[in-house]
């Protein structure tokens, strides 16, 4: 592990120095696109289908992931690792395959933490976990494919090195942590409709995702600026 890390470092700094400007610009537009499509999905749910997370969580969540997922796959596949070896189509397929797999992992995690398993919650859970998969696993799958090295670096160690790493790592972690904190109000006896599974968890995840994107942008800009100072 130590060895691989050392090998990676010069490469990434190299990458950053040459494509720093471009990376931050691309990161900005990518995050903006993801954020906007998320907002658009929620807006369409309210305006066109006249539902929202509280009144019909499963339809809203479905709309969110159906709209968000193609954008995420298309945009993140553009910045796949080793583009020479991996074709764009291949990255797209990876993303599409990762969607159900990531959903399964997310659903199992949520159930382990106490999400209800009754049949009346099944559709909710499926849609929620597909959304979570879109926010967390799919981008990484598009970019990294099956590289255990990168997956471990991003999800097990949380040690993002390149700008790309930040763009994948922080929003994904934000979504997971946000969802975790979003579960806390559920046992309270306020008798509000949004305390139902998975409404407040979804709210937490979306907020965490947005915060993560802002943080990732901040980190990338900071790194970029820092790098410039260093170069000068």
């Amino acid at each position, binding site marked *: *592990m130590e060895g*691989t890390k050392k090998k990676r470092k010069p490469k990434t700094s190299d990458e950053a120095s040459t494509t720093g400007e471009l990376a931050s610009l691309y990161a900005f537009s990518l995050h903006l696109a993801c954020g906007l499509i998320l907002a658009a999905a929620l807006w369409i749910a309210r305006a066109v289908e006249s539902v929202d997370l509280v009144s019909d969580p499963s339809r809203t969540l479905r709309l969110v992931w159906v709209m968000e997922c193609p954008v995420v796959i298309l945009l993140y596949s553009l910045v796949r690792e080793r583009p020479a070896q991996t074709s764009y189509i291949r990255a797209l397929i990876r993303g599409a395959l990762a969607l159900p797999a990531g959903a399964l992992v997310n659903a199992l*995690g949520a*159930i*382990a*933490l*106490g999400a209800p*398993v*009754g049949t009346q919650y099944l559709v909710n859970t499926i849609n929620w976990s597909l959304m979570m998969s879109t926010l967390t696993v799919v981008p990484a799958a598009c970019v990294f494919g*099956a*590289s*255990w*090295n990168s997956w*471990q670096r991003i*999800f*097990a*160690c949380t040690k993002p090195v390149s700008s790309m790493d930040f763009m994948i790592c922080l929003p994904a972690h934000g979504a997971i942590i946000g969802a*975790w904190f979003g*579960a*806390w109000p*559920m*046992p*309270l*006896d*306020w008798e509000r409709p949004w305390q139902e599974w998975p409404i407040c968890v979804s709210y937490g995840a979306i907020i965490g995702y947005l915060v993560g994107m802002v943080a990732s942008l901040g980190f990338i800009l900071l790194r970029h600026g820092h790098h410039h100072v260093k170069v000068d």
Partner: protein
Amino acid sequence: MSPSSSITCSRFATIAVAAVLLQSLGLFLFIFGFFPIKPALSGVSGPESFRAPWPDGIENDSVTALPPEKLKQLYQELSEISPPFDRLILMVIDGLPAEFVLGRDDKPPKDVFVEAMPYTQSLLANGFAVGYHAKAAPPTVTMPRLKAMVSGAIGGFLDVAFNFNTQALQDDNIIGQFFRTGRRMVMHGDDTWLKLFPGSFIRHDGVGSFFVKDTVQVDQNVSRHLDKELCRDDWDLLILHYLGLDHVGHLGGRNSFLMGPKLKEMDKVIEMIHRSSLRDKKNHQKGTLLVIVSDHGMTESGNHGGSSFEETDSLAVFFGLGGHTLDYASATDNSANQIDIAATVALLFNVPIPKNNIGVVIPHALNFMTDADKMRALELNSWQLLRLLHAQLSGLPCEHELVEDFTGDRKSVVSECSGNIEQVFCCLYQNAAILHKSWKFKRISMSNIEDYNNAATAYYAFLRTASQWLARRMTDKPVSLLVVGISAMLLSCLIFLGLVFHMNKALYLREDHHLSSSKKYAFSWHLDEIFLVGATLIHVISMGSSSMVEEEQYIWHFVSSTFYLLLIRKTAQTIPTDRTQSSLFLPMSQNRKINYPIISIFSVLVSGRILRAWHQGGINWANLPDISKWLKLAGHEYVKQLRLLACLLVIILSIYVLSFLWTRRKMVLVVGFSFFIPGLMVLKYIMSHEDDTSGSFTYNYSSTISAQKIYGVLGALTVVAVASVPWLIHISTSKACSNGDICLSTSVYHDVLNLSLLKEMRDSFYVIGWAYIFCWCLLQLLLQQPTNSLPVFLLLVQIYASMLHSFSAVPAHKHWIEVAAFYQLGMAGHFALGNSNSLATIDVAGAFIGTSDFSMLSSGVLMFIITYASPLLFLLSMAMWISMKDFSCLVTSQNANYGDLLKMMLGFPCVIPLCLNSVMLTAYTIILLLMRNHLFVWSVFSPKYLYVAAATICVYVGVFVVAATGTYIYLVVIYRKR
């Protein structure tokens, strides 16, 4: 590492024990201060209450056998008071502040309210009614206030705790007295009455107080009966409890626009009752008394529960419906206490004053009586209070002097009262008694209003002093006790934290000598550690919310599962990156190394999730479907088969785990076979004695005997195992060497000796820990409800899986993290077995398994064992956990010190549970103190405090067992080595 900076083992133990003692002292002081022990007299007042309280009389037990009518007649004769009324209408208007009707500080009530209640105000102004500000004691919540009103006592909390299963009021009270004297009662309104007095009413229509938004229907449901009830004459007591006004307050506060109409509605009801009773007067010889009370007031915003004037300002109005005119003009002082209502009603209706009453009869309510009767009423009230005082101050010195008979004019005896509290009470009472006698004596010749007033004043002086003193004793929270208690707990909490930090430092400094690479690891905080600390903090803070206390099971499960998910992440960090980019093609041995930790975590998570689903738990969603309810529905046969299955699985899994120690073949065989016997006995018990768990509990001799046999065998085997294993375990230096890999690390003979010694200790810990776990599981299979048998097995799976994880995880987790994880699992399991923070979920039925006669102690111990099954199981498993850890670096170093070894082995398993528990205890104590005026302090926070205190005891027990076992093993092995 210099030995001077480290604490020796004995000093460490001394500090820990001192901290435990300090904590238990603090806990004791706090409980003593916060929950006033109600000096209750048991039983109910009978005919003796119409006699003077001395000489310590012969209690006439035969009266309890009297039929109600006879009893009523007997009381009538004994009391010597001719009752002014024969029927009572008690109208409770929930949440009505007396200010709305009577005004405040000599100012009339607001015009809106006066206009809203024209009829009541006119009755009050004309002296047909007399109203009081009846001060209520906090907590100003309906149930305790109703209890206070009918029993005259300010309830303590612990009496709630002592009758877990029922909400029924068991103290002596006027409703009970009415019932015993054959009066027929009807209740319409808040169903709290039905919970308090089940089966007492001949007719009732209870309305729930749950839907606070409903201000109309709740009251219509009461009033719709009114017409019919007023026409009937088959009742002697009619209780009407209107909730609407309280709901109006909760919705819109005191100045809600609904308040005026609601008061008008109440006024209409009062008018209706009053007029109808006046009309009916001819049917009844004596007439009906209408008493209008409110249980508590409300704040400006309409809430209640606390102790502000607005909340405690409740109302009591007496309407003499028999055409009595009251001399209202003389009622200058119209303040009273809510508890006075019980004594007043009891005296007006000739039933004995409830035994624990501390109220004083309300002066103007006696105006319905003749002078002689008034005196007699005051005398009866005084006697009752004297009895209560006597129970509290056993040295009440005046008994003998009181027997003296006073005849003639002895006015000169009346004296100034001073001295200690006993003397003051005595003297005050004597003064009153003397004046009473002298008034009686004179009355024969002439009527003397002055003497009468003197005597009445003297009686009231005594009654008020006594009542105030008794009330203070029951409600006062001695601040000094609370402060001392909390600071003692805080101090011990800090000591425990300090000990944990010290242990952490000592352990990893020491390991540093050997593995300098782990330096970074030891001193940086890892995510799992940060998470545990953070989660503990969030948990502690969330305890400030009443619904989080009610639904605590979610928190424990959420936190422990998240922790294990984080462990998966941590394990994933160590999976080596491979050229082929996949971990599937690793060599077999490496694969297994990774698989064990992962598989064990998955087993913990899956069993944890099933456990979570077993009992829904909590308060608010307790009725949602869960596995245990489903099993109960599925039927008796399935439950029994599942129980047998669980028992078999427990036995198989345990034997399998024991067989890991196959290197000590003889030991394993002997222990395995001897412990197989109680396993079979429990199996047989489950097969043959299933029936007493279905339906009602019936005493079954053979099942009791076999349960007792199982207790005996389990206890004896455990003791024998603990005592003998360290002696019998095979000690051989050569063998330890021939095992190979341990010897390779060092060639010094001394170290080899030490390592083999360590191995023997670890093996002893393994066997004894195994014995503890197995016996405890068997005991739980016997005692727990039949539906809980599979959860016991799942808990066992969790234990062994996390053992396997802590054994196989590379790099090893920090010790304190592992112990803390065990503690978390234990608490999550506590709720998974169906416990909650309400006293109602304590399994009382299980506490009688194997007890041949009712004994508070044995069933209490059994109840504790059942309730704290899971935390104790995890604490006991600490003995086995010690054997999982490698302490070899401690004995092979140059300055190896056996004391340090013991400290390192026992330190974490003992101090971490104590520390976590003390954090919880201290924080919750502070929360409880802050919440003392909260609406739910008695219903939510206080029961939880009892659980926290019991959990503390549970941790003490578990830690003591582990520490004692560890010390014993250590001493024996060291002794045998020499």
